[in-house]
């Protein structure tokens, strides 16, 4: 029996970074003393000269990355999501977003499934912060294979990107034959009663939830919004005409992430009488804590059972 692959999106990222670095000498990576965890260190297998250890200094890393990018390098800047986005936000705002420089910001160990390190290290606001900045493409690959596709896609485009990566281990659950295109969401499962819209590795829980709902007679479609900016607005609009219930699922605060992005489109671009019932599943304006990934997903209603329960509540008209 072939052993099933289980890995985090960070692992796919590391493989792909090595691939693009082998192919293109302009590719460089910087990290802040987390290179083995973020997997950015893998670039040294292609060329040790193109890995820059910046020490524990995220602000310096971002501005240095910008200098390299302005000299024609394709720069992958790495740290934990919570640090790269939080600690260096002003450098990202001024020198990456406003200046439109070709820096790929790679935020690793994102979300509460960062796990045991606890709330200080769990990034639940990074998508909110990055979505708020003009010019930045925000990408959240769902599994290791999709992370590889995402790296190639962001490498091939010129301009700033926020790539949200995770250590949560999943199988390669996104069908291999689904094309990956930045800004185009994917249908992971057809359905007719409810649309479950997710982003990132937590989609594996969403798919499991959809299977359980099927047994209960609820047909749930599952969408993968791997690009949160620019958002696949057309698909959101189509979804609204096709489903009476839409539920977003994200390992992020319900404020400012996927759920907010969907709500913005629904309120502005979908006529009131056609708007579906809408719920957001995510971190409800609070912080995480230490625990295993599984425990934390359960606690915040992000595991398959929690998602099923929210769907049941919405379908029976109870409050979420």
């Amino acid at each position, binding site marked *: 029996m072939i052993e099933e692959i289980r890995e985090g999106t960070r692992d796919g990222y590391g493989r792909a970074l090595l691939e693009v670095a082998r192919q293109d000498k302009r590719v*460089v990576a910087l990290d802040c003393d987390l290179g083995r965890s973020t997997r950015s260190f893998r670039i040294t297998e292609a060329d040790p*000269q*193109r890995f*820059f250890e*910046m*020490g524990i*200094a995220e*602000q*310096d*890393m*971002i*501005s*240095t*990355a*910008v*200098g*390299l*990018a*302005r*000299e*024609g*390098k394709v720069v992958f800047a790495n740290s934990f999501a919570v640090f790269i986005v939080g600690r260096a936000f*002003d*450098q990202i*705002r*001024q*020198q990456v977003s*406003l*200046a*439109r*420089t070709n820096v790929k910001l790679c935020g690793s160990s994102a979300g509460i499934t960062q796990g045991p390190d606890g709330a200080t290290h769990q990034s639940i606001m990074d998508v909110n912060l990055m979505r708020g900045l003009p010019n930045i493409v925000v990408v959240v690959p769902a599994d290791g294979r999709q992370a590889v596709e995402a790296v190639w896609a962001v490498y091939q485009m010129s301009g700033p990107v926020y790539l949200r990566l995770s250590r949560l281990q999943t199988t390669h659950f996104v069908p291999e034959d689904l094309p990956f295109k930045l800004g185009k969401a994917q249908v992971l499962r057809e359905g007719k009663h409810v649309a479950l819209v997710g982003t990132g590795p937590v989609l594996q829980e969403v798919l499991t939830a959809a299977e359980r709902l099927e047994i209960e007679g609820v047909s749930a479609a599952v969408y993968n919004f791997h690009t949160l900016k620019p958002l696949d607005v057309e698909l959101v609009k189509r979804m609204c005409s096709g489903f009476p219930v839409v539920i977003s699922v994200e390992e992020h605060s319900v404020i400012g992430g996927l759920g907010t992005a969907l709500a913005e489109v629904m309120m502005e671009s979908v006529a009131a009488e056609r708007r579906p019932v809408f719920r957001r599943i995510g971190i409800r304006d609070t912080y995480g804590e230490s625990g295993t990934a599984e425990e934390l997903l359960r606690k915040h209603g992000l595991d398959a059972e929690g998602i099923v329960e929210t769907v049941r509540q919405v379908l029976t008209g109870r409050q979420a």
Partner: protein
Amino acid sequence: MDSDTLRKLTKRAWEIRLQLIRMFAHGKAHHFGGSLSCAELLSCLYFYKMNYNAKCFDDPSRDRLVLSKGHSVPTQYVALALLGLYPMEELRTIKRLGSRLQGHPDINKSPGIEAPTGSLGQGLSYANGVALAGQLDGRSCRIFVLLGDGELQEGQVWEAAMTTSHYGLTNVCVLVDRNEYQSQGAIDDLMGIEPIDKKWEAFGWNTAIVDGHDVGEICAALDRLDRKNTRPLAVIARTVKGKGVSFLENTYKYHNYSLTEEEYARAENEILRKLEAMDD
């Protein structure tokens, strides 16, 4: 260095001051103090030390000036206009809606502007990135970074100082415009930064302390870059905030301020008289 060169560089500095005052005109808030204090520094960089082709300013082998104290970008605009990158009359459009000359540096709007700065503390890190790229590509251009003295309060400056020396980027050169004042008052009162030279030395740098209005001293310090160096160089230039206009000097009040029509005329007149004296 011959006295003729020095005389020309000094005159350039005062020409920069004259154009600065003319571009600022009256009635609009501008960063007078820090723009006037660095005129000799920019004169010595653009008209003496830096290698570049003004007709081809994106040549990868050019020396670069990163204006980390981005609020002094008016001085850089004037220098670039004197080099022919902008028509002199365009200088007056500074800060106007639609102008190429933004209130702080914008690499996408303004030719000759090297680095996105304005929010302070980010220029030296940027310069290190340029130098690291040069190392990979076998380029040996120099990258000059102009820092404000108040800016040294930003922690990122010291992160970057560590990086420059850790990676041995001896082609990066820092100039500190030590004009003693920041936005709200005297630096020593608000948040002391001395001993500046000892700080840079502790981070692995060579230092030179010069009179920032004496072009001979500035150029001599910059010429140290031509020797074999194992450490990067930080030039601490003692300057006068608002230099050249008597009532703007040595005060924080005109850090970002607007002049009345009368004050403006007085300022222009003082600089013109200084320039006339040089011609005698």
